[in-house]
């Protein structure tokens, strides 16, 4: 069955440093991979989408890479700030023939940025 693994332990870093979160997947080949941010008591919020033919995608302080050979995506936040503290979820997506866009999420990695 499809499996997505993210760092289960919280990632604690100092303000100003770069945070790197990992997403590994097995048993399928996604066409896209999405990253979401989730704050306590709230629904996930979309951050970035990267396609299988894209190696890297950037948006402001965020950068995502997608290595289909390693079956891995890395999510980077540069110049991290305490406001970046949240849980980050990855969701590889394969457009199935039966027409569903369901997302299969990893367990998420909790990021804590200390001042």
């Amino acid at each position, binding site marked *: 069955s499809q499996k997505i693994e993210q760092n289960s332990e919280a990632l604690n870093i100092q303000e100003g440093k770069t945070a790197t979160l990992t997403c590994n997947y097995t048993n399928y080949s996604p066409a896209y991979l999405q990253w979401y941010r989730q704050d306590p008591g709230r*629904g*996930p919020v979309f951050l970035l989408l990267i396609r299988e033919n894209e190696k890297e995608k950037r948006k402001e302080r965020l950068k995502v890479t997608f290595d289909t050979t390693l079956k891995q995506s890395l999510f980077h936040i540069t110049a991290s700030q305490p406001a970046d503290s949240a849980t980050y979820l990855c969701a590889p997506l394969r*457009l199935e023939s*039966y027409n569903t866009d*369901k*997302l299969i*999420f990893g*367990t998420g990695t909790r990021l804590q940025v200390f001042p």
Partner: protein
Amino acid sequence: GAGVSQSPRYKVAKRGQDVALRCDPISGHVSLFWYQQALGQGPEFLTYFQNEAQLDKSGLPSDRFFAERPEGSVSTLKIQRTQQEDSAVYLCASSGYRGREQYFGPGTRLTVT
């Protein structure tokens, strides 16, 4: 514009009771999804609608769970004869295009006592 809204935000049900959870998606969004999120876990897919058609219900855990979207906009997730293991946050999401980002509501936290 308004995002995805869900009601109620919190629901406490006694074991065996039926509950109904409502989702108002973003206007014009064709796709609507329901997910279940347990504490400390990522959301898990329950069911998917394209307009009023329920195209995928592979994630519904039992026949006690039922979802509908009769007019292709508002959706209701119904859980019959609730059990303690149904306690979770139920998230609704909508999307305007296939393969694109999903917009999530704040969720309904269901506690079954």
